[in-house]
Structures are given as C-alpha cells and as structure tokens.
C-alpha cells in the first residue's frame, strides 16, 4: 500500500470512530427535538452519566455487562425524571424556557456528579483488549469496532422502531403535527416522556463506548454534547439520517483537517464547514425545507 493511502485510511478510521460517537449524541438531540422542539442541552450529561456510572459499578466489583446495563438503566431513569419533574410541569411554556431548563438540568447533573462521584478522571477497561488491529497498514483499536458496530446496530433498531412499530409511528406522528396526533388519540405526554428516555439511552451508550478510549469525568459531557449538537445542526435538526451523516462528517472533517492542514485549527475547521453548510442550506443537509408555521 502506498504510504499516502495508508495515511488517508488512518485519518478516515479515526474520524469515523469519533464521528460515530457524535452521531449517537446527535441522534439523542434529534429524538427530543422531534417530540418537543426542545434542544436538550443535558444530552452531554447523559453521555457523562453513562461512563461515570459504569465506572462506579465496575469499581464495586460488578461485571462489565451488568455494569453497562445498570448505567444505561440509571441514565434512562434520570432522563425520565428530567422530563417528569422539570419539563412536563411547564410543558406549555415556550420553547426557549424549556431549553433554559435543560441547561439548568445539565449544570445540576454535573454538579451532583462532581459532589457524589468526585472530580477525578477514570478509565474503563476496553471491551476486547488493547491489541491494535491492522487494516491495510493502518491500525484500529478493537474498541473502535465496538463503537462502529454498536452505532450501526442502534441506527438499524431505531429505523425498525420508527417505521414498523405503532409506538414508533406515534412518535413520528407527534413530531409532524402535535395537535393532529393528539386528536388521533396519541398520548403526546407519553411520547415526550419516551423520547427523553430514548435520548438518555443513546447518550449513555455513547458515553460507555467512548470511556475506554478517552477516560471519563464529570465534565466530559460538555464538549461531546457540543460536538453532537453541531453534528445535529449540520445534518438538519430533527432528521435521524441527518444526525448520523452530520456526526460522521464532523468526525472526518476534524481528522482530515488535523492531519492535512493544521491541528491548531482542528475545531475551527469543523465549525467553518458547518457555517458554510448552514449558509447555503439553512436547515442543514437533511433538514425539513420550508418555513415555520405561524
């Protein structure tokens, strides 16, 4: 293999790995946005909780699969509680108010975690060892395969859920027209609750998958949440396909930018591309065209 090709392949592999995580976070944003038009800024905290709770359970001597289940379950519970206690009581408030509530929830969750679980960095063990795999001269960690595989599986499951189950279709219907959905007998409050639970699930899984690579701590959700949000915007808010494409694209732009141009401007380049896309296509790559209903 020519070295230039191996180099490109290496950049792509690393970009796709980060991108898959961004995509999972972006999907979480999309789910809640669809159900409520709220941008849930506590999404990054779901990511953080997934990693941190897994670490706590592991350190108590619980096996990895059980710890992962426990962390996902607990994070979902937090997501449901957030909706029940903070969003539902004021659901008739305007969207900006709800968004501010999620920012408050994010700060609260970060603070609570730092007080109860500490401010230290923690590493999770890689699921299948640390022996890098060789792929045509480039290397990839087994954990990256876990990330890519799990993300693909989740995307598939979500596709089936939204297109072939009554509940999934109910969520879709609510996202298209809330009032009409309610008139058709759909319990929109339950849909909203469910979307928070699902988002928390996605966030927790992303947080657990990436923790063996990056280590986890109470503030890890800030940047991952922001990147996921950027990915969601890039793909078009509310679009599932957009979230996935946006996430992968963001990861690849960052990696190619750092590799070929300059690592100093890695983050800047990603955001410049996003601005460029939004300039030409204000609703993102796959966002719904058209104007806001009045």
């Amino acid at each position: 293999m020519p070295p230039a090709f191996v180099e490109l392949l290496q950049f792509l592999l690393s970009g796709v790995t980060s991108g898959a995580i961004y995509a999972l976070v972006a999907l979480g944003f999309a789910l809640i946005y669809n159900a409520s038009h709220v941008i849930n800024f506590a999404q990054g905290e779901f990511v953080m909780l997934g990693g941190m709770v897994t670490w706590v359970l592991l350190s108590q001597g619980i096996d990895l699969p059980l710890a992962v289940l426990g962390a996902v379950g607990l994070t979902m519970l937090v997501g449901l509680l957030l909706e029940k206690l903070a969003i539902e009581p004021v659901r008739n408030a305007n969207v900006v108010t709800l968004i501010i509530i999620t920012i408050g929830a994010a700060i609260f969750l970060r603070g609570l975690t730092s007080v109860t679980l500490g401010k230290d960095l923690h590493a999770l063990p890689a699921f299948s060892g640390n022996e890098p795999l060789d792929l045509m001269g480039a290397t990839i960690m087994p954990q990256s395969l876990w990330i890519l595989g799990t993300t693909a599986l989740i995307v598939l499951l979500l596709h089936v859920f939204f297109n072939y189950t009554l509940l999934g279709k109910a969520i879709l219907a609510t996202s298209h027209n809330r009032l009409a959905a309610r008139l058709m007998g759909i319990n929109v409050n339950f849909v909203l609750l469910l979307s928070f639970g699902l988002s928390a699930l996605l966030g927790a899984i992303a947080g657990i998958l990436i923790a063996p690579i990056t280590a986890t701590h109470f503030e890890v959700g800030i940047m991952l949440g922001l990147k996921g949000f950027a990915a969601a915007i890039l793909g078009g808010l509310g679009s599932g396909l957009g979230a996935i494409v946006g996430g992968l694209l963001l990861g690849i732009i960052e990696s190619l930018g750092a590799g070929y141009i300059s690592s100093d401007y890695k983050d800047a380049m990603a955001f410049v591309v996003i601005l460029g896309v939004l300039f030409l296509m204000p609703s993102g790559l796959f966002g719904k065209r058209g104007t806001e209903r009045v």
Partner: protein
Amino acid sequence: MFKRMTKGLLAATVAVFALGGTAPAVAQDDPIRIGSFLAVTGPASFLGDPELKTLEMYIARINGAGGLVGRQLELIHYDTGGDANKARTFAKRLLEEDEVDVILGGSTTGTTMAVIPLVERAEIPFISFAGGVVIIDPVKPWVFKTPHTDRMACGKIFEDMQARGISNVGLISGTGGFGKSMRAQCLEVAPEYDIEIVADETYAPSDTDMVAQLTKIKNTEGLEAVVNPGFGQGPAIVTKNFAQLGFEVPLYQSHGVASKKFIELAGEAAEGVRLPAAALLVAEKLPMDDLQRPIVMGYMTTYEAEYGAGSVSTFGGHAYDGLMMYKAAVEAAGSADPAAVREALEGISGFIGTAGEVNMSADDHLGLDLSAFRMLEIQGGDWTLVE
C-alpha cells in the same frame, strides 16, 4: 503612606525591644502572621487542597514545638477558587487589613502574577507555589517560588535525549495553559541541547482522539522521539494512540502527568514512557544516601499518616518547601522583619526540600537546577528511576 510609616515605626519599635532583650515578653502575645491564598476549590483544587492541608499541618507542628524565634505562627487563609481577580482582592486584604509578615501561596501562575505588584509595593516577602517561569524571570525583589519550572522539565527531557543520542524530536502539545507554556519553553531551550523539533502538533484539552496528529508525526522524516507537554486526560489518550500506531521511537511525557492516575488511565500503553518528576514520586526508591530521601520520606509519611495512604502529591510538597524555607529564613534573620527575612531568603543555600536542593541568590529566586528533576520510566505499571 501613613500606613507604611506606622508599619516602619512598629518594626523599629520591635527591633528596639529586641535589642533591649525584652522581645520575648512582647512576642509571646504577638504571633507571626502568615498570609495565604490558595485555589482550594475550583478547577485547580488538586493544587490548592494539598497545599492548604500541608500548611495547616506543619504550622500546627511548628507551634507545637515552640514556634519560630519564640513566637507562635498564625495562618490566615483565603480560597481563591483559582480566580486571579479574587487572588488580588484577598492579597490586598492580607497586606492591608491582616497585616501579614509573609505571604505563602498562589497555587497557579495566574493568581500569583495578579498579586505580585501588590506585594512588591507593600514590601512583604512572597513565596509562590506556582510553576510558571515568569514569576521569577525577571527577578522581583520580594517574590520567590518553590516548584520547578516547565523550562527545567524541557531541559531535563532534552538532557536525557542527548544521553541517548537523540536529536530529531516531534512535539505534540495540549493547547491548555500548561501545554502551551511548556511547548513554548521547549522550543526555546531545544537549541541549547542540539535538539531539532521536526514536527510540532497540538490538540485541544477536551479532544478524544489524537491519531491524526500522531500519524503526521510518525510519517516525519528522521523522527527519533516524541514529547507530549500536556495535562489531564490528553496525555493518556496520546499515549494510547501512540501505542496503537506502533511507533518505534520513545515517548516522553511531562511532569504534568507525574501521578499514579496517569498510569491507571493509559494502562499498558504507558509501558516504557519516560518523564521528569520530583523525587517525592519515587521517595521509597531513592538510594539510601540520597540527600533528599529523609526529607521526602518524612513529608510523605507525615502527610499520609494524616490523610491516608497514597494521598501525598508533589503539589503539597511545594507548600512544604515554601513554609520550611520561610522558617529557615526567619531563623537565620533572627526575626520576622520582612526586610531581614527577604535578605535571608535570598541567602538560602544548601536547603534541601521536596523539590530538590535550593541555592537562592540575588538573581535567582528559585534556586533549583536540573538535578532536582528525576528522569523516570514506567515499567510494570510503576515508576523506575533512570540512571
């Protein structure tokens, strides 16, 4: 103006009393006031917390042993949370309202620099626990500091490389304060050791993947070693990515990751990584005849007896050094008079602290040399001394 005059008058009165031999009676009621401002909470709390604990613990011990020149010590502390503005306000309060005899503190370079103009004007000795070389370069008459500088860490790394016959080096630095400052220092001192920086990459502190930057470094012609100035999770990720890409050259980390946490985070990938660190990290592994051994062992056992096994950190050691240096200076001066203590601090030589042997002078208010850093290599999940 009036304030300074009264203070001068007071000092003169005390001096007269001291000459007259009646000092003990006065001094008994009048403790030496030690002011301190530290980042006990906030992002730099890992610095401030052990520093404050160390000061409190050792001041109590000195008082228990009869105090300094017959006077008890009183610690007046304010928590800055790492905020330079708060540091300035508190320093003002320490100098003007609390009328302290000395200031020991300043966990970060930022908080220290904010305070320097105030102590210079008030003419009170100030010993900082922060790393930045700007604190003592250029020399300010009333300002001293205890920890090594990042410039010395670069020097130590390059010295080790020279011994191994390495001259082409790739840099991958974090863009946080620590990484940025150390990168600049490394670039500056590299020529002194005939080191050429052949690759110079950066990453943001919250980045989750540095494979792209490292791939670029790996493909650089003639690369012989990689240095990673950085702090927190970044270096652990760099170390893992470094192992993943199968580099055939050595990796050097900085003193910024000199803690067991780093080995825990980087896991097996940390094997063979070298880094400069203070002797405290390898206290038990120091040779029996090492001058620092009794000091660092003493500090470690005292601290861990109070706060639990494994709790000791080099940061608390900076506070220990500062307090002990002040103690030595007061004893040498025979009083806590600021001007006399300043003179004595400048005259300190052969003082052994946790950071190394300190030899101050009028144009060196740090007094450490490269021998204070130990070159360590990670083997079998633990530190080993490189000789």
